[in-house]
C-alpha cells in the first residue's frame, strides 16, 4: 500500500502545527519522522489516524484520496497506530486486549476466544513477537506490552504502522528487539512510520528520514546522514551533541550515602546502597528504569524514609532530615517527573522560580510575600537561563518541556547549594534543550558542586559522568570510568556481577552487529553514532578515579 500525504496544513488558532506537509511512504519501507518536540510530528500522525481533520491537504492511499473522520476509518483503510502511552486494559489477557472492539461473537453470543488466541499466536510466530495470548497485560514488561499493541494493529490488517516515540519507554535491549521486529515487518511488506527525536535510532532503523521543524518539512535524508547533519536540520542551527568538558578536579567528599535502604510494600527498592560524590565531579547513576532510582532520589530528598543507612552532607547527618531541612542544607534537586514533582503547572513562572525559597528573604518578610523581589528574581533567571516564556506571569504548565526544565534548573541552582541531584534531567527534551541542560550541569560541576545524575539514557551518562555507577535492583552493581564500553555497562545494568562475565541474558551482545547491517555506508558513520560501542574494550576493569574523561570526546572527533 502506497501512502501519500499532500500538503497537509493544520492550524490551532494562530499556531500552524502543520504547514503544507507532503510525504509519501512506500510499501515495505521504514519512514522515520524526525523532529523536536512541538515540530508537528504528533499532529501529523493524528491527522493521518483520523483523530484530527486537516484544514487543507489530502491523504492518498494507492493514489486514491481518502478522508478519515475517525480512527475507525483509518483502521479500515489499513492504518495502525501504536501510541506512546499504550491503550491496554491491564487486567485483561493479551488475547482479550487484541480483540477488544472487534469481538466476534459465536452463535450463542459467546466470544470466540479460541480463534483470537490462535490468531495472536500465529502473528506472534510469523513476526517473532513472542507474545503469549493468555498472559495478563499487567504482568508483562513494557517492551512486551508494546508488542501487544503491534499485534493489535496487525490483527486489524494494518499495512501502515505508526509508531509514536516507541523507544521512550524501552531499555536498550528492548529497543534492539523492537528494531528486529520492525525489520521483520518491513520485510513482510508493512510500511512503518517511525516517529522519534532520537537521532541514533532513526539512523539505525530508517530507510528514509523526513525532518520536521516548526510544522514544515525541512529536509529528507537517507540513513548515512550524519548525526550532526540531522541535528542541525532539526534544530535549525549547529548543535553540539556532546558538551565539551574539562577533566574533573574532584575535591573533598560532599555527599556520602552509606548502606541506604528504602522499604516499600513491594520489598526493598533500594537495598544497602552506598556511594560518595566529591565536590566538582559528576557521578552518573546508570540503570534500566525501575531499578530503584526513583526511590533512591526520593530517599535522598527525605520524601521517603530510610529504613537503614545514612546520608551525610559535608559531615552533617541528614538521614532523618525533612525535605525542607535538606534543601536548606544545600541540596538542589531536579526531579525525574518534572510536571508532577518539579513544578506547579497552574502557578506562574515567577512563582515556580521561588517554589522552595518563597518564605525566605528577599522573597518574604514575615508572612508577607515581596512581589517586587519575586518579579525581579524571575526576570533575572528567565534571562540567564533563556527560558522562552511570554512573561513571568505565564503559567509554567503551558511551557514546553525544555523550558519547564530550565525553570526548575534555574530555581534549584539559583539558590545556595553544594549538591545537585538531577534525575532523568533531559527526558523528553529536544536536542537544543538537552545541549543547554547538559552545559549547565557541567558548569555546576566546574563551580565545585557535587553532581549526581540519574539517567536511563546511556548517551547522557557518557556525555556527563566523570564516574559511572550502575544500579540494578536497588544496589550498585559496579563503578566504572566513563570510557567503559557500553556492552560492559549493559551487562551491569542487567544485573551482571561486578567483574564477572556476560550472563545468559540474551539480546545485549547483539547491540553491535545489529546497528551495522542497516547502514549502507561504511563504518565511519556508525563510529560517530556510537563511539562507545566500537572503542577499545580492554579497559573493562579500569580503576576508579579521575581518568581521561575526554577519551570519548576525542574519539568522536577523530
Amino acid at each position, binding site marked *: 500500500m502506497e501512502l501519500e500525504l499532500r500538503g497537509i496544513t493544520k492550524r490551532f488558532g494562530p499556531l500552524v502545527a502543520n504547514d503544507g506537509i507532503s510525504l509519501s511512504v512506500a510499501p515495505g519501507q521504514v519512514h522515520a519522522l524526525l523532529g523536536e518536540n512541538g515540530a508537528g510530528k504528533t499532529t501529523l500522525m493524528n491527522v493521518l489516524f483520523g483523530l484530527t481533520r486537516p484544514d487543507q491537504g489530502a491523504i492518498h492511499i494507492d493514489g486514491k484520496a481518502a478522508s478519515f473522520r475517525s480512527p475507525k476509518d483509518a483502521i479500515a483503510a489499513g492504518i495502525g497506530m501504536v501510541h506512546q502511552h499504550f491503550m491496554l486494559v491491564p487486567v485483561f489477557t493479551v488475547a482479550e486486549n487484541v480483540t477488544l472492539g472487534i469481538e466476534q461473537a459465536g452463535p450463542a453470543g459467546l466470544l470466540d476466544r479460541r480463534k483470537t488466541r490462535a490468531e495472536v499466536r500465529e502473528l506472534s510466530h510469523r513476526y517473532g513477537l513472542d507474545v503469549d495470548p493468555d498472559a495478563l497485560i499487567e504482568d508483562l514488561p513494557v517492551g512486551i506490552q508494546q508488542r501487544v499493541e503491534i499485534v493489535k494493529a496487525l490483527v486489524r490488517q494494518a499495512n501502515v504502522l505508526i509508531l509514536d516515540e516507541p523507544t521512550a519507554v524501552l531499555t536498550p535491549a528492548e529497543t534492539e528487539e523492537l528494531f528486529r521486529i520492525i525489520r521483520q515487518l518491513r520485510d513482510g511488506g508493512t510500511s512503518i512510520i517511525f516517529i522519534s527525536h532520537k537521532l541514533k535510532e532513526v539512523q539505525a532503523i530508517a530507510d528514509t528520514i523526513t525532518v520536521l521543524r516548526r510544522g514544515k518539512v525541512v529536509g529528507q535524508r537517507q540513513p548515512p546522514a550524519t548525526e550532526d547533519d540531522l541535528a542541525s536540520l532539526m534544530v535549525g542551527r549547529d548543535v553540539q551533541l556532546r558538551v565539551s568538558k574539562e577533566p574533573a578536579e574532584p575535591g573533598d567528599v560532599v555527599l556520602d550515602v552509606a548502606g541506604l535502604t528504602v522499604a516499600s510494600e513491594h520489598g526493598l527498592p533500594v537495598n544497602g546502597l552506598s556511594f560518595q560524590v566529591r565536590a566538582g565531579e559528576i557521578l552518573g547513576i546508570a540503570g534500566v528504569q525501575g531499578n530503584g532510582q526513583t526511590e533512591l532520589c526520593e530517599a535522598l*530528598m527525605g*520524601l521517603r524514609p530510610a529504613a537503614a543507612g545514612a546520608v551525610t552532607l559535608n559531615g552533617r547527618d541528614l538521614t532523618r532530615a*525533612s*525535605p*525542607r531541612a*535538606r*534543601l*536548606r542544607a544545600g541540596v538542589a*534537586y531536579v*526531579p525525574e517527573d518534572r510536571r*508532577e*514533582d*518539579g*513544578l*506547579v*503547572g*497552574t*502557578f506562574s513562572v515567577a*512563582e515556580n522560580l521561588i*517554589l*522552595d525559597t*518563597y*518564605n525566605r528573604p528577599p522573597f*518574604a518578610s514575615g*508572612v*508577607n*510575600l515581596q*512581589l517586587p523581589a519575586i518579579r525581579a528574581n524571575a526576570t533575572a533567571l528567565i534571562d540567564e537561563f533563556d527560558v522562552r516564556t511570554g512573561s513571568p506571569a505565564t503559567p509554567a*504548565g*503551558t511551557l514546553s518541556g525544555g523550558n519547564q526544565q530550565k525553570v526548575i534548573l534555574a530555581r534549584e541552582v539559583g539558590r545556595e547549594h553544594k549538591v545537585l541531584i538531577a534525575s532523568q534531567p533531559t527526558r523528553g527534551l529536544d536536542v537544543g534543550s538537552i545541549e543547554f541542560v547538559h552545559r549547565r550541569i557541567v558548569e555546576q560541576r566546574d563551580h565545585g558542586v557535587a553532581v549526581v545524575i540519574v539517567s536511563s539514557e546511556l548517551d547522557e551518562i557518557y556525555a556527563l559522568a566523570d564516574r559511572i555507577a550502575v544500579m540494578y535492583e536497588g544496589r550498585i552493581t559496579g563503578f566504572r570510568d566513563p570510557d567503559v564500553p557500553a556492552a560492559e555497562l549493559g551487562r551491569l545494568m542487567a544485573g551482571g556481577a561486578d567483574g564477572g562475565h556476560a550472563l545468559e541474558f540474551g539480546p545485549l551482545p547483539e547491540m553491535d552487529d545489529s546497528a551495522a547491517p542497516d547502514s549502507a555506508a561504511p563504518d565511519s558513520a556508525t563510529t560517530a553514532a556510537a563511539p562507545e560501542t566500537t572503542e577499545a574494550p580492554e579497559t573493562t576493569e579500569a580503576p576508579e578515579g579521575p581518568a581521561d574523561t575526554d577519551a570519548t570526546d576525542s574519539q568522536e572527533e577523530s
Partner: protein
Amino acid sequence: MTTPPPATEPAATPPPEAEPDGQPGSHRSFGDIIRLAIQENTVTITVLALVTATVLGGLLTAFTNSAVLTAWGHFFSAPGNAVGSAWDAAFGTYWALFEGSVFNPHTVAALFQQASFSAAIHDGFLSAVFNPLSETAVQATPLILTGLAVALPYRAGLFNIGGQSQFIGGAIMAAWLGYAYNMPFFVHVVVCCVGAFVGGAALGWLAGEIKARTGAHEVIVTIMLNYVMLYFLAYLLSSHSLMEAPGGSNAITLPITSNAHLPLLAGTHLRINAGFLIALVAALAVWWLLNRTTTGFEFRSIGANTRASRVAGMNVERNWTLVMTISGGLAGLAAASVILGTDFTLNPQSYGTYGIDAITVALLGLGRPGGVVAAGLLFGALHAGSPGMQVSTGTPVQIVQVIQALIVLLVAAPPLIRAMYRLRAARAGGVSTTMSKGWNS
C-alpha cells in the same frame, strides 16, 4: 435559546463578577462575546450560565403560570397574545424579584409624596427605599462567609462540606456567650464574634487534623461531623440544664443580650448590620492571605500540586490542618452574623441550608474571594426578593431555588455552556470543572 430576548432582564440583579464588560445586557455583538470567551473563559462561562439559567427560569415561570397556559391554548387564534402573556409572566416575576432585592420605584414615589423630607426620613420612607438592598446584604452575609469557608480550603485542594457543622459550632459559642454573660456593649459583641470564630475553627481543625493524621478523606469526615454537630445541637437544646431557655419546652435558647447584637448600620428600620462589614473584611482578608502571604502561597501550591509542594519542602499535613481551621472559623463567623445580627436566639434550625448553599456560592464565585462576594450577593438578592415576588406575582418561591440550581448546574458543566454558545474549549478546564469533581484528591 441561543438568542435570549428576556436575557437583558437579569442584568437587573446586583452585578456579579461580570462587570468587566462580560455583561451580555450591554448590547454586544455575538462576535464580541466569543472574543471575550476566548480571552477569559471561566468568567464568560459563568456569566453565560447565569444568563441561560435566567432564561430557562423565565420560561419555567411562564409555563407554570395558569394564565399563560390558557393563552397558549389559544395559540393558533391569538399567537401574539400567547407570546405576550408568557413574556409578561416572566418579566413580571423578575421585576418583582428586582424590586424585592435592589430597588422599588414605588418607594421613591412614596418618599417624594411626603410633605417634608425630614419627616419622611423620620417616618421611615427613606429606609423603605433602601430596604431591598439592606435585605439583600443581610441575606448575603452568611452566604459570603460560608462561601469563603468552602473557597479557601478549595484553593488548598480540600473540599469542605462541613460548613454546617462549623456553623453550628460557631452558633453555639455565639449564643452561649451572648445570653449567659453580661459585658459592656462593644466588648460583648467582639467576644461573641471571637467565640464564634473559635467554635467554628475547632470543628474545622478537627476535620483537618483527622485528614492530616490518618489520611481520611475530608469530604467524608466533614459530612459525618455535620451529623455529629446537628445532633449535638439538638441535645444541647433539649434540656434546661444545658442551653434550653428555662420555663418552656421550645428547644430554643434565651435571647442574647442587646449588648451582644451586631450594631445596625443604617438606622433601626433597616436590618443591615455590622455582619455585612465582617463578611466584606473577611473576603478581603482571605484574598490577602491567599495572594500576599507565604501561608497562602503554600495553600495554593499544595492545592495545585501536592507532590511538587512536598518536594519543595512544604509541610502538606500542617497546611491542611491550618486551612481547615481558618475556614471553620469563617463558617463560625457566618453563624455569628446570623445569631448576633438577625436571629438573636439559637434553635435547632438556625443552621438553615448555609452549609450546602456555601458550596454553590463558592462554585459560582470560581473559588475566588471577589467571586464569592459577588455570588453571595446574587444569591442573597434572590433570597431577599423571592417572598415579595410570590406575593405580587403568585410565582412560587421555589422558582428561585430552581434558578439557583440551574445556575450551579450550568456552571458545573462548562462543556454544556460551550456547546450551547459554540465557544472554544477552555484551557485547562477552569475552577468549576475541577471543583464539581470534588471527589478526587
